[in-house]
């Protein structure tokens, strides 16, 4: 018991609405180790860490910290007991200096005012002590991402963190910054700190960690000694070894390339390069799947193609036309449908009736309106038809769409976007949070659209879905296409995992096949 600084035994977390985020998790930390916690999105890693950091309470199970049974009633208490968290999305006030961020909430005082000199001195000394030198007086906004992360780590250390939780720390770092981070972590380890390293990038984890715990579907699967396990084994444990053969597609005849992307790159506001030169074609009748763990550039790619973000460098064409000058309004004038990742954010207006949500992108249509007056007969017929064919469970077209379940809401979105058989459909996580029945119906629609000659871009973190629907498949990792498959035959989640987790990549000629691929 004494070799473990932390023990979390049989933790379960069931939310009030019935969601089971953790069903049976047992996780322990040895003092002074670097312990990786890995798993896909939705495996339950972040919930577990939220419990550890006092942001949530476990429904079942016990936590022992330094041998004593502990309950964290809030982050303040967790911090007080020596647990520090470096979040994936930094918790820094951009307009503050480094010193101001570090002493936030524990400012040194001189009378009524903050002792700025002392704050600077404290920060500098802190940086020296942990060999994480930072300039206390630099404005946080101007720091490169790697330095911002240093500040976050120092913040935790300043509050006396013995156990440091790092959530996807390398997601936004350059290779050099990653090397630096690892150096820093090794030093912290030498000084007696214990580190939990949450990540999905296996090669990195192998480099730095002592032990690895794999989570899947809310439970811990296995804990390994780092040197004693292969990347393949880890990947299998993460993905689950279900062998999934894709549907036999046979030789398909594809038409013109409706979507063409060349060398698309994108750097976001904080200077991170989210896309590094992506190129591919999607032809008529083709479902082009993009697999990958979320956060590897898929969102930026879709945002650019749907005109929420500008084409910074490279080219994007729909039906041969350059779309860089188009906006969200003019792109709708092309035969185009888009099922967004977050239906509540932009896919629907929750307080507006189902029928109106279903025609919102097509108000110029002379079927639905004449001289501005809505033709409710035709609209209701259209809506009724969709409600039937998509089996939407609702109290009629006039019900506010926000009252529907996730699956039914998504059906409304799909019904609208596919309503007039668009030549291009971009589907982003189309069945996330959707029940099996609804997912099946949505998949059928995508396949039908395709058979009718549409070009479909399918971005999904759900491998079963991607494998089932895609004709060709690319894998994105860290903003690049690292793999391209002209057919999904023989592919399974196990194999794909290696590419998604950065363990393997195709050579450049294979990746180039994504352009003008597969005749």
């Amino acid at each position: 018991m004494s070799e473990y600084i932390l023990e979390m035994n049989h933790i379960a977390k069931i939310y009030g609405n019935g969601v089971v985020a953790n069903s049976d998790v047992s996780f322990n930390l040895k003092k002074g180790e670097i312990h990786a916690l890995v798993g896909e999105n939705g495996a339950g890693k972040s919930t577990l860490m939220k419990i550890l950091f006092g942001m949530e309470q476990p429904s079942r199970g016990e936590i022992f910290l330094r041998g004593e049974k502990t309950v964290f009633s809030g982050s303040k208490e967790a911090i007080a007991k020596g647990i520090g968290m470096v979040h994936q999305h930094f918790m820094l006030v951009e307009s503050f200096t480094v010193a101001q961020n570090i002493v936030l909430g524990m400012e040194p005082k001189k009378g009524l005012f903050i002792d700025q000199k002392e704050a600077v001195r404290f920060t500098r000394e802190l940086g020296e002590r942990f060999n994480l030198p930072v300039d206390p007086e630099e404005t946080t906004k101007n720091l490169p991402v790697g330095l911002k992360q240093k500040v976050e780590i120092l913040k935790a250390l300043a509050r006396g963190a013995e156990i440091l939780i790092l959530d996807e720390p390398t997601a936004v770092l350059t290779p050099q910054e990653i090397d630096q981070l690892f150096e820093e972590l090794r030093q912290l380890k030498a000084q007696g700190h214990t580190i939990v390293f949450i990540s999905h990038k296996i090669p990195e984890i192998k480099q730095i960690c002592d032990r690895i715990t794999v989570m899947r579907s809310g439970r811990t699967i296995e804990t390994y000694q780092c040197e004693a396990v292969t990347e393949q084994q880890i990947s299998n444990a993460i993905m689950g070894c279900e062998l999934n053969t894709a549907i036999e597609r046979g030789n398909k005849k594809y038409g013109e390339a409706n979507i063409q992307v060349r060398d698309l790159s994108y750097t976001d506001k904080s200077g991170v390069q989210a896309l590094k030169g992506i190129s591919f074609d999607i032809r008529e009748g083709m479902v082009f799947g993009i697999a990958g763990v979320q956060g590897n550039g898929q969102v930026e790619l879709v945002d650019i193609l749907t005109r929420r973000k500008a084409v910074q460098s490279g080219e994007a064409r729909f039906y041969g036309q350059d779309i860089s000058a188009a906006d969200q309004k003019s792109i709708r004038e092309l035969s185009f449908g888009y099922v967004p990742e977050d239906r509540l954010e932009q896919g629907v207006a929750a307080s507006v009736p189902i029928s109106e949500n279903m025609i919102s992108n097509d108000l110029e249509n002379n079927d639905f309106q004449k001289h501005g007056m809505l033709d409710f007969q035709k609209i209701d017929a259209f809506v009724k038809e969709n409600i039937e064919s998509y089996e939407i469970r609702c109290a009629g077209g006039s019900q506010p769409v926000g009252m529907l379940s996730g699956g039914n809401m998504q059906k409304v979105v799909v019904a609208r976007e596919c309503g007039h058989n668009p030549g291009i459909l971009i589907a982003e996580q189309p069945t996330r949070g959707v029940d099996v029945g609804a997912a099946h119906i949505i998949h059928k629609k995508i396949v039908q659209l395709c058979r009718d000659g549409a070009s479909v871009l399918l971005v999904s973190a759900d491998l079963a879905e991607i494998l089932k629907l895609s004709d060709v498949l690319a894998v994105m990792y860290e903003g690049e296409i690292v793999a391209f498959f002209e057919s999904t035959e023989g592919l399974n989640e196990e194999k794909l995992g290696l590419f998604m987790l950065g363990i393997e990549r195709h050579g450049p000629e294979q990746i180039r096949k994504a352009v003008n691929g597969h005749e």
Partner: protein
Amino acid sequence: MNREKTFNILCTAVAMLAAILVAFLIIILVSDKPVESILIFLMQPFSSGRYVGNIVETAIPLIFSGLSMAILFQAGLFNLGGEGVFFMAGIVGSIAAIWLKLPIFIFPLVCLAVGAGTGILVMLVPGALRAKFNANEMVTSLMMNNICYGVGCYILNNMMRDTAVSSLVSYKYRSAALLPTIVSGTRVHVGILIALLCAAMVYVFLYKTKWGLQVRATGANAKFAKYSGMNVMKVILLVHVIAGAVAGCGGIVECLGLHKRFEWTALPGYGFDGAMIAMLANNNPLGVIGAAAFVAYLRVGADLVSRFADVPTEMVSILQTLIILLISAEKFLHKYKQRWMEKDIQIKEVQHEGLH
């Protein structure tokens, strides 16, 4: 869905009830004849045809103002320029009513058009600034209120003033311009029909046309509106045009219906009223009619009490505040109910996302 509508109505009823109870409280505290005062407040407005007429005539400008705010709120805009529009439209419309010479049916219609047109122009200032440059329409519209008042007063003083009369009023309107009374024994004028017609038109616009759909979509979720390809800038402009026209109409209708000359020496005070009525009506144009009637009833009751027992009519604004606060707080309760229902919805979603 039915459950939700009932919940809404219940909450609004609670707000209205609370307002009446607070009215009682105020009356009890202030009046030296509390019980009689309360009875007067509650019952006297219904006691005679003339008083009921008062309710109707008081409701007319409130309907216009409520409609104007309802449209703005439906689009998610917080323009409070109703006061200035009423005033300015009244002035310009009065100019037409004083100096033009037109036959009997056409004259009031022309004046109405002038009023509506003025309203549009005034509202377009904050509207255009918001549509194009995202300037805060609340502050700009309030500045317009004060500017309209100043400019309007200038015009009144220097171009329209009837010096034969000692108080500050304009020349008389030509009688052909006036809006006739339609119920004898009261002061209820044609304006009520115009108001009801406007309410119907706004209702049709909002719920039966594609532009109305765009307005409501923009107010519900601007990102969704953009995503669906709607031109949000045009929507904002359109909403301001309609709201301006309706409020402008309201201003001139009030002048030509209840007065023989332009008599306002201060901003008539319909701006905030309209906001509150719109909220009470849940921004539904038809509901505005009922809400306006309710507020008019409160007003008339307060007025009667003030004559009887020396309780100032301004107590209505205290009730107003209470209603707004309760309805907004009700929105919180509402959110609770919504969140509870959403929780069913999001069960599987959260599972998949891992709460990241």
